[in-house]
């Protein structure tokens, strides 16, 4: 299956701008389906961006984050051609990881 993570990281020399889109249902556990049964909570709990062995962005997410979340941030440093590792873990223990090249 294709990755659930889309990343684009561009370096301007001093800083690197990162955009990421993650495919995830992000069910809060408060919504009912058509039969009136609660859709069990299923959401990303931690999202990590690693560069050069260090975490540059860590997000502790909860049920309030929307479906297919989008993140944009920038950090100091980062060179063109270097690797940026992105991973997430959800409340069911599922996880996905991708390594992208900084452009």
């Amino acid at each position, binding site marked *: 299956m*294709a990755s659930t993570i*889309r990343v*684009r990281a561009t370096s301007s020399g001093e800083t690197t701008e990162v*955009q990421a*889109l993650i*495919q995830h249902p992000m069910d809060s556990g408060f919504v009912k389906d058509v039969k009136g049964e609660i859709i069990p909570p299923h959401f990303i709990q931690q999202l990590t961006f690693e560069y050069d062995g260090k975490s540059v962005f860590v997000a502790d997410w909860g049920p309030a984050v*929307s*479906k*297919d979340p*989008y993140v944009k941030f920038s950090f100091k440093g980062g060179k063109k051609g270097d690797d940026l590792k992105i991973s997430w873990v959800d409340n069911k223990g599922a996880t996905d990881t991708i390594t992208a090249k900084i452009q």
Partner: protein
Amino acid sequence: MHVRSAIHFALAALALAALPFLAAPSAVADDTSDPVADARAFQKYFTEKFPKLKLEDFVNGPYSMNEDMHRQWEEKEQFPPYEFSVEMGKEMFAKPFKNGKSYADCFPNGGVGIRQNYPYFDDKEGKVITLELALNRCREANDEAPFSYVKDEMAALTAYMAFTSRGKPFDIKIPNDPRALQAYQNGKRYFYTRRGQLNFSCATCHVQSPGERIRAEVLAPALGLMNAMPIYRSEWSGMGTTSRRFTTCNSQIRGVPLDPQADEYRDLEYYLSYVSNGLPISGPGARP
């Protein structure tokens, strides 16, 4: 008494005499109305209302309406939310049915780059065939269960087909067939007819007031509306097809929506696509 019955008689005779004259002009008007001139006038209305916009800009709906929205759109297009759907559609398109055939076998050119030709008028059936309808018929012909017309799988398939047709100008044809012209006229009538508790027609929002706000939303112009289908709407947090757009529009004006792919909707899509002829396909789109 005599006088009164004489008047009655005279009135009845007058009414009878008047009937053919009353009926005739409207029938003639229907037959002679010219879709080509219609489409030209339609496009002229919008280009005059928004003189700063290029014709092909209209396909971006509310994002073409002001600079702020346009910047949002440019940013969104760098990282479009419909990407997952296009990918899903591509996978579905490549995967054969149980009988070994695939979607590509149902469509000219293997289904690639043909979005701009839909909907078309089918002279055998005497009705308008939309892309969504053609896709479900393709499934049924291959012993697969049809998809829901409004979202998910259907949106993914149409998103992929639109994506492969991007930039190609809409090329809807009205063949020389009175039924085709009738379908076009029916679609036009549906578009301009007021309905629902709010007494809105499609045109109330999308011809009279594009660029204006309705609550927090900026209304899209009717010109180019179909070019962006299907769309990812942030409001839906998901994809929606043309069918979904039509049915939700009808419920929003507090009308009772028809079934997806009802004859009226097929005619409406035919009309709306025809008047956007020449504008490029921009689907799948993203909307607030």
